[in-house]
């Protein structure tokens, strides 16, 4: 933006507060990535989101009060960024099926891969609100109060989202509900193509139709 590339050497020493802040950011990167991955599914999109969050956080560092929960503060920024990116690029599928599909095929050296994949795929069926609440509380270790602050909603709302998310995941994982192949109908064709491809691949070779827009009638 500015022409300070040439004068990089003359960087003044960072203030103590700034370098503390930066060290804290560095430490929290893994958590930002994990939360971002839970929100977007797709690892690349998630890392972009986490990086945007770092930049935003750095720019806004003056508004962070030291001693308060930096992780929650960062997660709030990340979440806001996620939703504003989503509004801008709506053609993206809300949840990337790719991630869920990639896991089972990835070698199978881990016995839990299949279970994990089921859980991840089941996560994809939840609404964004339920998924983020469940991840924050159930995996991220946030209190309901912190999760409510991050999601900008009432504590009771978080509680009920978590409860509903848990229930529907359990229903799905226990087979009471079936796991739909394409939980969100995206605007673009990419995900439909992936699903169609999967349908093709799961059929015996002889039956493979050259073009199957095989919507199995799970009607829109």
């Amino acid at each position, binding site marked *: 933006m500015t022409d300070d590339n040439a004068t990089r050497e003359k960087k003044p020493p960072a203030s103590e507060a700034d370098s503390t802040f930066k060290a804290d950011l560095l430490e929290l990167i893994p958590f930002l990535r994990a939360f971002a991955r839970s929100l977007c599914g797709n690892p690349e999109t998630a890392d972009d989101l986490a*990086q945007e969050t770092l930049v935003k956080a750095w720019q806004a560092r003056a508004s962070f009060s030291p001693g308060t929960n930096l992780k929650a503060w960062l997660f709030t920024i990340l979440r806001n960024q996620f939703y504003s990116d989503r509004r801008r690029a709506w053609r993206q599928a809300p949840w990337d099926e790719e991630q869920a599909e990639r896991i089972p095929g990835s070698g199978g050296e881990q016995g839990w891969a299949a279970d994990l994949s089921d859980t991840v795929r089941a996560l994809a069926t939840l609404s964004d609100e339920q998924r983020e609440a469940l991840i924050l509380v159930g995996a991220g270790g946030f209190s309901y109060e912190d999760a409510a602050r991050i999601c900008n909603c009432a504590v009771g709302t978080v509680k009920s989202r978590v409860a509903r998310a848990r229930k529907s995941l359990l229903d799905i994982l226990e087979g009471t509900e079936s796991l739909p192949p394409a939980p969100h109908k995206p605007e673009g064709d990419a995900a439909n193509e992936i699903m169609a491809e999967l349908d093709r691949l799961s059929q015996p070779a002889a039956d493979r139709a050259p073009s199957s827009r095989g919507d199995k009638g799970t009607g829109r």
Partner: protein
Amino acid sequence: MAKDEDKPDRESRRAIRARQRALGRELRRHYDSVVEEPVPNDFLDLLRKIDHRRNGGEDS
């Protein structure tokens, strides 16, 4: 089956809790598996650049 919350006996309450715990473990494992990934270099570069940007003096 749909009504088993109405009078869950002790057995099924325990079963439900067990399944919720299993689900919780699964979620944490998924989340932790990302947390434990090494931080990609992009992120470290970004933090370095962010620092250099300080002398641009265009913070707002």
